[in-house]
């Protein structure tokens, strides 16, 4: 009984705050009507749908192999769980959801081919799921050429920067610029003013270098050294000698297999007298904090998008989501405790599918010729409410940048867990929009 009530409450909050007038309101009523009828009998919703239209086909561009394979695996599990749940509450606009997955090998060349295949051979309604930014750059323009809506789950700044096209959205995962701006303020104010940044020598790293530097100016901090490390590096000790003696905080965003070595060598280099550490959980997605060599991280802080360890502060929606995707309270797979989740990224898949659901139901989308309406409807969204559909937290959404903005978490490593010590507000990460996709033609 309680669960059904929760679902009802959450479905009500899924209805978006839309500014679009006539079309939106009409769709809203229609959508509400459909959802309303399902609220009355969620299980009958499927029977109701079967009588109506054909399935909504969503193409999932997955990093099943290549350097993104770890994320791809969890993205796929989360996607399947989300679809299972959505179909159990009546699908999208009463139509069952069908996911068609293709592997892009985390390769931009194949990304474009996959978009092509999903759009023209499988004839999906929408494509979503890319994470790695170079693959996004290689694939999204093709989606624009093929004129198919493309939902990115990447945390890259590409969408909001205006580099892409009007068919591309990133509605349910925040971008690095917002993340860095939001948490580095906390870092400068709580850990120390003199910061050394250690970052990988490519785009993801440059984002951190640039936006953290901008945040330093804003919060009276000082970047005393910027150390770039080539992605193929396997040993880091030679870089540590370059860290200035007056460093209060080491801000590190190393990603890739070398992270374990990075942390271990950092510990070997400094010993017990070390500066504060501030990192991003990207470094340790899929990695158990108690892994050998990571003890040096004890007492250090990490940015998280969604706290890996369950706590009493979790909302009902968050708990429902964690259970649905098969993750236990320590962030590992329920069926294999060694299989740690990419918990700060994968929620993006879950929420994006719900965002698609909301956009379809509000716009009255039936088939490809309704793309323009769907896009305009989504551009009218101002945000999403926290709940089962959006368990990471409430979000603001900008129709101009096609990007969402949300809360970020700062967690501290202690007792073999990550414990949240700070939660930023949505406003902490906002910045002036640098583009306006609504002005582009479709």
């Amino acid at each position, binding site marked *: 009984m309680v669960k059904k009530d929760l679902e009802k409450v959450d479905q009500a909050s899924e209805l978006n705050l839309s500014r679009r007038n006539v079309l939106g309101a009409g769709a809203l009523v229609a959508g509400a009507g459909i959802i309303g009828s399902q609220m009355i009998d969620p299980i009958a919703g499927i029977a109701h749908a079967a009588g109506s239209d054909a399935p909504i086909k969503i193409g999932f561009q997955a990093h099943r192999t290549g350097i993104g394979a770890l994320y791809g695996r969890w993205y796929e599990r989360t996607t399947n769980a989300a679809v299972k749940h959505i179909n159990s509450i009546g699908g999208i606009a009463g139509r069952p959801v069908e996911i068609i997955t293709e592997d892009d090998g985390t390769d931009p060349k194949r990304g474009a081919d996959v978009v092509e295949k999903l759009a023209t051979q499988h004839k999906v309604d929408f494509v979503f799921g890319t994470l790695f930014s170079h693959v996004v750059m290689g694939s999204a323009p093709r989606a624009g050429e093929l004129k198919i809506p493309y939902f990115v789950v990447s945390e890259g700044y590409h969408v909001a920067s205006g580099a892409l096209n009007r068919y591309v959205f990133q509605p349910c995962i925040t971008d690095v610029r917002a993340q860095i701006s939001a948490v580095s303020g906390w870092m400068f104010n709580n850990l120390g003013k003199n910061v050394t940044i250690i970052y990988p020598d*490519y785009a993801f790293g440059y984002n951190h270098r640039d936006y953290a530097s901008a945040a330093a100016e804003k919060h009276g901090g000082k970047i005393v050294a910027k150390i770039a490390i080539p992605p193929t590096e396997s040993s880091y000790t030679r870089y540590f000698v370059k860290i200035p003696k007056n460093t209060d905080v080491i801000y590190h965003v190393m990603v890739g297999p070398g992270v374990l070595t990075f942390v271990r060598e950092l510990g070997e280099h400094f010993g017990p007298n070390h500066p504060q550490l501030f990192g991003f959980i990207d470094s340790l997605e899929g990695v158990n904090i108690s892994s050998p060599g990571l003890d040096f991280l004890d007492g250090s802080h990490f940015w998280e998008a969604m706290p890996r360890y369950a706590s009493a502060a979790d909302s009902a929606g968050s708990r429902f989501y964690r259970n649905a995707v098969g993750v236990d309270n320590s962030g590992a797979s329920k069926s294999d405790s060694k299989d740690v989740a990419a918990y700060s990224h994968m929620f993006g898949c879950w929420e994006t599918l719900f965002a698609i659901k909301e956009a379809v139901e509000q716009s009255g989308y039936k088939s490809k010729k309704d793309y323009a309406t769907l896009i305009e409807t989504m551009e009218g969204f101002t945000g999403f409410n926290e709940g089962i559909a959006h368990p990471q937290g409430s979000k603001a959404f900008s129709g101009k940048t096609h990007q969402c903005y949300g809360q970020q978490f700062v967690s501290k490593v202690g007792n073999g867990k990550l414990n949240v010590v700070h939660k930023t507000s949505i406003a902490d990460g906002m910045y002036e929009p640098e583009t306006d996709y609504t002005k582009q033609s479709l």
Partner: protein
Amino acid sequence: MRKKSLIYSLLFQGGILLLLFILQFILPTYHHSSVSKIMVLASYAVAYNFLLGYTGLMSLGHAMFFAAGMYAAGLGIYYLELSALGALLFGAAFTLVISLLFGLFALRTSGVSFLIVTLMFGQTFYLSILYFNEFTFGQDGFSLAKHLGKLVIFNKEYLYSNPDVRYNFALILLTAYLLISTLIMFSPVGRILIAIRENESRTQLLGYNVYYYKLFALVLSGTFSGIAGAMHALLFTYVGTTFAEIHHSISPILWTLLGGAGTVIGPLFGTGIMYYLVDIISGITSNYQLVVGAVLILMIIWFPMGIMGTLRQKWMKWLP
């Protein structure tokens, strides 16, 4: 006899090209697009084959040439607002210079040493794109979608991403490469290149300046690879370091050897088969790499001359 071979070859290849031309009116959208891409990549393989199949030099760094043409064309359009033709020419010129400089250097080595020098230079080129990332956009790459003008033919405007434009431009590229390769192979220059492949020291003894011939082959192979890269940028819009990585150097080797090194049209079959193999298998299992690896091993054991090579040996002795 050779004249007859030349005619048979041109007819055979002409037939295949005609088939490809007709195919565009029958193929469903997805395959139409796939074949366009296959033709551009096959052009890269045909260019590669010129060095491997005919001169006998195996390079493990050809992605350098492909990427050089691609980046020259792409950056030219992005920063200098070159036209499509201008970008192609710029890409060709840039790659010509690079292959010439590289050849002057690298051809002092041969065999395995040559292989590794090409590998290293390929890696350096890749690293330099990353190093100058403020200018080249580094690993992320960039898209030309918003920077390309429109193609104007007979007063009608077309986007470069238009499926018909893509298909036919790719076909024209492939046709040109096949024609040029065939003509060269039947010319005296081609005969000397084959002689170098078969027995370099004897050819040298006969009085030929082997070094210049090898340089010619390398520059031709490199420049054509670059033009293929430039065309790829134009038609498929994305320019990124993935085209400069070692895997993109390994690909033409596979395509060429699978299709038949030392045959002009072999690379086309090799490229097409590999492309569809990956495509079909990744629909069945997420571990397509495993199947590709197994297929490669089996292929090279049973068909070491590649498909066209084996066909030539058995039935089509006149194939160039």
